[in-house]
């Protein structure tokens, strides 16, 4: 397998009047061809800013990619001009957003919104694009696609709109699909439909997916690899079975303990005390130390690096696990 996307030490900061807010602070991430990688974290962890940085959609000012590389097929996206980036966006990398209610244009028909993408990127003429648009709608499971092309978004339910978004995103056969909380706004039965559809499409077209979510259940259903973020940094990275089998970082362990299970009865949930600190008040040392039940002196003074453990098959940013490796 070859790396399709490689983030190297990505730093996206926001400049406010007084403070410099490190929303994404040194993220390394690799996505192989055909692989589904889940980026997990709570609100404020920087997962959405990471995805927007890849798309170069960070509002600037105040946001800026201050350091690092985003290598897509070997090409550094950070150095591209806006025009070059426009050719990649929607064509090689496309994105699905959380809110299917607001991400479609309400005054254009569904057909027009798919046709626009096809005419711009694939240089199809209008009637070719229209035929292709109907095909795409059939692909995402609409039975009356021909009629639907001329409908407006308000006539569709949330699940149907999200399927239209997937049709738009997949219309140019992208190599990478970024899905930012694609099912969070949907009901569970509809969520199951959408996740199934995404899995099928990625297999069929060998598309890599970067799935951004806070729902660990969704992660275990669709992802191959999981990257856990906290306060703008990656704290753990592992294959999905390994992570659910034995989470290593105290934050990941806490996160898993916080979810009530559908199959067991527990009296109390194991919660993580305190709140996620705001970026302008990130603690010195390990950023999770103030909430960590295992924190010791070193954690409060030095920031642990993201280290390989278990023979390089997974990574964790924690002194509890780092020492063993350092001596071996």
């Amino acid at each position, binding site marked *: 397998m070859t790396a399709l996307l490689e983030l190297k030490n990505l730093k996206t900061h926001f400049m406010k009047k007084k403070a410099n807010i490190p929303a994404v602070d040194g993220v390394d991430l690799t996505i192989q061809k055909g692989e589904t990688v889940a980026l997990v974290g709570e609100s404020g962890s920087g997962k959405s800013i990471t995805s927007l940085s890849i798309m170069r959609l960070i509002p600037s000012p105040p946001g800026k990619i201050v350091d690092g590389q985003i290598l897509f097929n070997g090409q550094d996206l950070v150095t591209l001009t806006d025009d070059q980036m426009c050719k990649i966006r929607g064509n090689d990398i496309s994105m699905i957003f959380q809110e299917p209610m607001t991400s479609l244009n309400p005054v254009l028909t569904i057909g027009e919104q798919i046709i626009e993408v096809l005419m711009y990127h694939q240089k199809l003429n209008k009637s070719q694009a229209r035929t292709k648009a109907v095909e795409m709608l059939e692909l995402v499971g609409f039975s009356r696609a021909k009629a639907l092309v001329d409908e407006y978004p308000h006539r569709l339910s949330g699940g149907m709109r999200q399927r239209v978004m997937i049709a738009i995103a997949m219309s140019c056969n992208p190599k990478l699909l970024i899905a930012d909380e694609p099912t969070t706004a949907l009901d569970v*039965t509809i969520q199951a439909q959408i996740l199934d559809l995404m899995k099928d499409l990625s297999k069929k077209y060998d598309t890599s997916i970067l799935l951004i979510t806070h729902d660990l259940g969704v992660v275990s259903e669709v992802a191959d690899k999981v990257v856990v973020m906290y306060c703008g940094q990656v704290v753990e990275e592992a294959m999905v079975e390994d992570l659910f089998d034995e989470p290593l970082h105290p934050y990941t362990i806490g996160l898993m303990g916080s979810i009530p*299970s559908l199959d067991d009865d527990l009296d109390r949930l194991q919660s993580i005390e305190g709140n996620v600190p705001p970026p302008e008040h990130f603690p010195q040392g390990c950023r999770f130390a103030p909430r960590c039940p295992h924190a010791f002196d070193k954690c409060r003074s030095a920031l642990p690096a993201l280290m390989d453990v278990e023979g390089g098959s997974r990574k964790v940013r924690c002194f509890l696990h780092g020492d063993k490796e350092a001596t071996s």
Partner: protein
Amino acid sequence: MSTLTKKDSNSSIITDSDYILEVNDLKKHFPVKAGILQRNVGSVKAVDGLSFKVKKGETIGIVGESGCGKSTAGRTLIRLYEPTAGDIFFKGRNISKMSESELRRTVRKDIQMVFQDPYASLNPRKTLKSILLEPMKTHNMYKGKEREDKLDELLDRVGFNPLFINRYPHEFSGGQRQRIGIARALTLNPDLIIADEAVSALDVSIQAQIINLMKDLQEEMGLTYVFISHDLSVVRHISDRVGVMYLGKIMEFAPKKDIYEEPLHPYTQALLSAVPTPRKKGAAPRERIILKGDLPSPANPPAGCVFHTRCPAATAMCSEKVPEFREVKKDHFVACHLY
């Protein structure tokens, strides 16, 4: 309806003291108006015949997808919406037809509500102190020094630093605001709390803190909860008995063990199978029932069983006859022709 005995709605006192809340065939229909004259052209049957009983000190979970009427049910229970039909007995009193002033005099302070959105449910122009004092003033409870003591006690109960008392809601995080919402609901020592998606807007680690807090408070103060949520795992965690709603009706109502381990209704089965859950290495993948299509409109619900359009086990009878909501096993109620 074997154990859900019909009460004569004229008699306003019942003697069955085990139950703090009893709901009989509760309906809430919203009119649909059209044309220049705004004539009624139909109605949205948001809640269409709910019947259940709540025991003192227990937690009833109500789950369902968006649009199933669970929030409308919660609001109708405390008369934020006027019920279209049916009876609500609270501590033996029929509150469904009480006048507004009588309500306020007798039961308002005993039933409180915690809302979903901690950002919208607190007045941004009031400090924490005045938010918590307002219910006491309205109901004329506690005098002078007692109020200050009560404030301290409330803050202590929900784990708040008393120094924060003069801060405004925008200075707090989502989890802290939800604690304020809970503290406000507790000011008048209620018996029943209706929590409408109380933890849905919170991150998982904060959600766990709030759920633990609600469980502790229940134990300490003997509260009864009606917990409305779309999240099946949260409902399993907090509830004693669970009702599953679909298009304004309860499809299944049973102790949580029965609902989660032996669901009878095809909708409950599909709903449970659709929930993605973290699974350990080697564990067999769960079989999944994927429902076709979307929720039908409650303005024009399907004839017969409302679920028959999406039901994998539907027969001809399902589209003609409305299934009766009845007890098929002990304490296990289902509305389905299969049983």
